[in-house]
């Protein structure tokens, strides 16, 4: 990210004011900040969900607008909260659908889905509908979808949401695997939250700027 500026309509000050961030392969970057500081906005811009007013954002040289498909293929985004699931679809149906939306090669669909089920300990829940699962189980599914297509950059917006210690351990293990294969992650959460892993870089959003924690 280079010089990213984002202003909300009707607000005088920018929520992000010239933010620059380099994420090195094989690292996890933690971004903290008070509520409303702009952490989610930062991730949403990086995810290509919303556009910055100024500045650029690239992933391996890919632009989220010009190279949208390739950019998104390389990206995994876990949004904040517990949304983004279909209440009446099963765990497996979610993973299978996402593998196809993520343009996973046809011959790899089943293997990746089975791997995600095993990796996030969802095998026993595979055929269960989402509305019959606990919030923590749903979060595990959301995390599984984020990592399913083996993205090179994973963006996590308060991923601990509803996760118990076992769930957190699974997330941390997935991040370790990501580091090992040369991927990177940005983990956003409020200051003081226990991460369960030691990030390589610690930053904080303050007054629209990204500064070392």
């Amino acid at each position, binding site marked *: 990210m280079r010089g990213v500026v*984002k202003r909300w309509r009707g607000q005088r000050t920018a929520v992000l004011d010239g933010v620059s961030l380099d994420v090195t392969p094989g690292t996890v970057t933690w971004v903290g900040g008070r509520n409303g500081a702009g952490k989610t906005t930062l991730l949403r811009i990086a995810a290509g969900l919303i*556009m910055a007013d100024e500045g650029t954002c690239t992933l391996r040289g890919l632009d989220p607008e010009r190279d949208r498909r390739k950019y998104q293929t390389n990206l995994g985004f876990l949004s904040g*909260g517990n*949304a983004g*699931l279909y209440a009446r679809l099963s765990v497996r149906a979610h993973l299978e*659908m996402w593998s196809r939306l993520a343009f996973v090669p046809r011959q790899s669909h089943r293997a990746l889905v089975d791997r995600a089920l095993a990796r996030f300990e969802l095998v026993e829940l595979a055929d269960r509908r989402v509305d019959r699962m606990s919030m923590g189980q749903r979060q595990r599914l959301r995390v599984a979808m984020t990592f399913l297509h083996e993205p090179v950059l994973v963006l996590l917006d308060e991923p601990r949401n509803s996760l118990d210690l076992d769930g957190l351990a699974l997330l941390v293990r997935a991040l370790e695997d990501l580091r090992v294969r040369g991927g990177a992650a940005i983990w956003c959460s409020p200051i003081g939250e226990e991460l369960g892993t030691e990030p390589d870089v610690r930053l904080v959003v303050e007054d629209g700027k990204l500064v070392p924690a």
Partner: protein
Amino acid sequence: MTVAAGYISAGLALVKRDVLLFFSYRFRWISQLVQVVLSMTLFFYISRLVGTGRLGAADDYFAFAVVGIVVLQVLTATVGLMPIALRQELVAGTFERLVISPFGALGSVAAMTVFPFASSLAIGVAALAFAAVAFDLPLQWPSAALAIPIAAVAALNFAPFGVLLAGAVIAVKQAGAGATYVITFFSLVGGFFFPITLLPGWVQWLSEVQPFTPTLDLLRHVLVGSPLRESALIAVVKLCAFPLVLGPLSLLVLRSALRLTRRRGTIAEY
């Protein structure tokens, strides 16, 4: 996997999602079928009151209305349900996931029009069969098969209206009322329940600048043998020409709505 194969696979994944969600409510399709059957029955008895020079006998009006009911059902599913489904996606946060998928929002919205169209068409076929069996609807079996290609082209005509309303939902978040107006307007000027020749002359031109009137004309002709208002060739040309204009226009509007809301940062809002 080629890019084209990837897009097709992703589009089919969304169609499969819609199928699974639809059938997760076990009685939903039955209730839709019952609704159409009741409409058929209602119009059958209303048609017993009809005996005008414009439509001939009561049975002629019933045949006229049955095709209108079926097409209106398809129109409602394709145009009216799209904004509702999309709004549900926005509220549930699932649309956000579609936007950041490699398949993208544009493809996702387009794919979302497929199942409502196909399912309403299937229910329409069942309704026609019911009308034929229960009320002696004079289906023209030799030409009825032509309804399939007409329906396929009709899909390309109906979908842009759903896509346009999807753009409105993304931009202003509420477009349910707009869908109701669109459906009501076209049911009035399209000739769904009465011939457009009954409309005042200064309104009739509206029947010529939308695709529903030629769709209805052709379907009535091949299904129940109603005479065409104009030559079949002209009706077919109209039916093929509208999507060439409406398709790109609707995608352009949707794309603009997506870009606007991504720039404003309101795309995930509802």
